[in-house]
């Protein structure tokens, strides 16, 4: 079943591409702003080979990496504190609940005011947007630790640090990883959006710039590149997740059977 599913999924994907190809080839006028995928792919190879796109990819990935890393450290740290210390959480909960649902791109103008239009601004909005899923999942993960586990740590006389490293962190880790995975896509969204608002490099800038100068095939090629990057980052993450969280996958599978 699971072995056949990707093959079927792949067939649907190829089918869509074929329909796109056929539709786009119906008229030259249509192909001007809706080029067939074969041409988009050719353009992608060309701009990659000429080195034209690589600088933009590197700029975007660098912002992504900085923003994601800072958000991860900041939100996991804050989440652990808030999860462990209830009075602190009660203090900050209303603020979190107010800020969290606000669409993150709304912070871009504020970030421009304070940080200008450089990398700092783009990294800052990425950090802001990525932090929420990581923060909330970390808090939940810590608070969901069973009292029996706390009591086990106590009866074995674990000190505060040992309790943190040997119990809290591993017990909350599946939830933390879930937050990190959700934030992966969000980071890419915010990097692209902020580059579209104001930038002179990066994939977001490149896509919008090529659209404005009516280089439609280049625009599509860069979008495809972005999609592939997103896909590969997710695959990379799932690989790491499957490796470090194998115990949790086994445990939840067991619970499903029972």
């Amino acid at each position: 079943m699971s072995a056949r599913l990707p093959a079927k999924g792949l067939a649907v994907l190829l089918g869509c591409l074929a329909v796109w190809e056929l539709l786009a080839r119906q008229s030259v006028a249509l192909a001007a702003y809706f080029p067939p995928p074969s041409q988009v792919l050719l353009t992608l190879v060309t701009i990659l080979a000429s080195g034209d796109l690589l600088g933009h990819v590197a700029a975007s990935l660098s912002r992504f990496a900085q923003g994601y890393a800072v958000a991860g450290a900041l939100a996991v740290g804050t989440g652990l504190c808030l999860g462990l210390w209830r009075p602190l959480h009660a203090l900050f909960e209303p603020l979190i609940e107010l800020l969290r649902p606000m669409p993150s791109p709304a912070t871009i103008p504020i970030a421009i005011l304070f940080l200008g239009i450089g990398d700092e601004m783009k990294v800052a909005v990425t950090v802001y947007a990525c932090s929420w899923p990581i923060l909330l999942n970390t808090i939940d993960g810590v608070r969901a630790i069973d009292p029996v586990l706390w009591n086990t740590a106590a009866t074995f006389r674990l000190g505060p640090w040992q309790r943190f490293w040997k119990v809290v962190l591993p017990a909350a880790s599946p939830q933390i990883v879930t937050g990190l995975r959700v934030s992966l896509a969000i980071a890419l969204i915010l990097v692209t959006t902020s580059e579209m608002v104001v930038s002179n490099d990066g994939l977001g800038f490149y896509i919008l710039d090529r659209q404005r100068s009516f280089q439609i095939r280049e625009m599509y090629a860069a979008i495809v590149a972005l999609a592939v990057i997103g896909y590969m980052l997710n695959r990379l993450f799932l690989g790491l997740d499957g490796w470090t969280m194998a115990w949790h996958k086994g445990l939840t599978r067991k619970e499903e059977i029972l």
Partner: protein
Amino acid sequence: MLEVRDLRKEFQPLSGSTVVALASVSFRVAAGQFVSIVGPSGCGKSTLLQCIAGLSRPTAGHVLLHGREVTGPPEGLILLFQEYNKSLMAWRSVLKNVRFGLENRPGMSRNQIDAEARRYLELVGLEGFEAHYPWELSGGMQQRVAIARALVRRPEVLLMDEPFGSLDALTRIELEDALLRLWESLQATIVFVTHDIEEAVYLSDEVYVLSRRPCQVIEEIAVKLERPRNQLTTREDPRFIQARHHIFELISKEMSRA
């Protein structure tokens, strides 16, 4: 060696009046004894164990271990829980769970800890399962892991909170005998809480019968049956049947008390 003196524990619920879980509980346990505590369900048996283990502060009264007041989890005493699946660390293999029992013991090398953990896994009959995760094992085997993790610390006192309560009858019988063998060879003191009267009589030197809430000891029954005990002959012994009969009457009188 272990003395509980006039122990009183009150809870203050969010709404309503104070709940007195323990009214005034007193008893002494001599070194090397196997003592069981039985009582109607909800009478505060678990609260009593948590107070003895230093996990919960009594409202009044004292717990003395070797004449010294217990104010926090004391060295040389381990509380073992009924919920082995919550108490064991799902992210650690069976061996690493047992190692956990010694990891915060100063002055032990990794190799020494490893050797001790393997020795105790063998004692509880789990050699060959070192690399498994706890959730891959049956309930009875998981509780064996928890017992090995507790015993590897060589506690003087082992408190057990309905450890076999969620296991099926045959597994229970197996673990009762395994526990008695371990107790005899390791010469620990065991305080065993159960709601199973027969189990209490079968295992113990002394059975303490608790009243309904607010809880106190209503009778101490000495069980003068030879060891090693035997699931068939011990349970058929007239003294066994007499003790069971007596305790059953005490508890059913308690339960029917308005």
